[in-house]
């Protein structure tokens, strides 16, 4: 059984509760789910399901990296200064997150996700 199949119900739950995610592969086939949940509740549902499939998160075959649109996820915020030629997708790529996560955290200073300017300081959820 592949890692994806092991955590299939977690992916299905993410699809159902409105979490957007992307998959990537880390060290030794570790599955990395990087996504943004619509609410803390939705995020908690995913963590509950993860705990059900892998009690106490011991297996080391999954990294669940879910932030929520509304607040900084668990850890701190990083500040990124926009450089010439940047766009949100490109910046998000550097952090392994989705552009929308940056957009959601910077609505107060951005009016349009396609318009960012060199020198602007963006909050990066990490």
């Amino acid at each position, binding site marked *: 059984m592949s890692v*994806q199949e092991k955590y299939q119900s977690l992916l299905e739950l993410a699809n159902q509760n409105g979490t957007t995610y992307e998959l*990537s592969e880390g060290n030794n086939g570790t599955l990395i789910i990087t996504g943004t949940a619509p609410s803390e509740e939705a995020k908690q549902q995913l963590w509950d399901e993860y705990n059900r499939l892998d009690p106490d998160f011991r297996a080391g075959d999954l990294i669940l990296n879910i932030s929520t649109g509304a607040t900084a996820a668990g850890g701190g915020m990083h500040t990124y200064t926009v450089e010439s030629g940047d766009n949100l997708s490109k910046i998000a790529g550097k952090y392994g997150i989705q552009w929308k996560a940056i957009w959601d955290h910077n609505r107060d200073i951005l009016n349009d996700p396609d318009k960012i300017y060199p020198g602007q300081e963006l909050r990066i959820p990490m």
Partner: protein
Amino acid sequence: MKIKYLTILSIAIALFIGACGGKSDADLQKAVQDKLAADNITGVTVAVKDAAATLTGEVADAAVKSRAQASATGVEGIKSVDVANLRTRPLPVATPAAADPALTGKITEDLKKAGCTGSSVSVVGGKVTVTGTEPSARYAQCVQVIMQSGITGIDNQLKRGS
């Protein structure tokens, strides 16, 4: 008399065909394709032989594969669905969010902020090894903090205290 027999025979044949359901493999193939399209599942090629469907191609992930199988199985007249050769897309290789010392520093700081003072971490090649003990009530939160730091691997040896 001959005409009567022919009439009866043709009625019998018509009834027989009707009783069989009459859906050809081609009809079933179209029905499955339409169902997958309606469910927003793309990248799947459908073949049907003797009412058994075989799905091939490439889908985004295991959840989509499972939905594709369920959708095809739900089509009336389909007896079985084979997804053995329906692949999931190869995943891009993740890169750690920062160099190992920077990640170690960031995680340590984030843990401290979250009150996870019993954990210690070391990062090698993007993979974090977590040791120490955290109270049961805070355990999951501490693991979350670590997993949200941009690492690409984890060896979780953190003990769950009382």
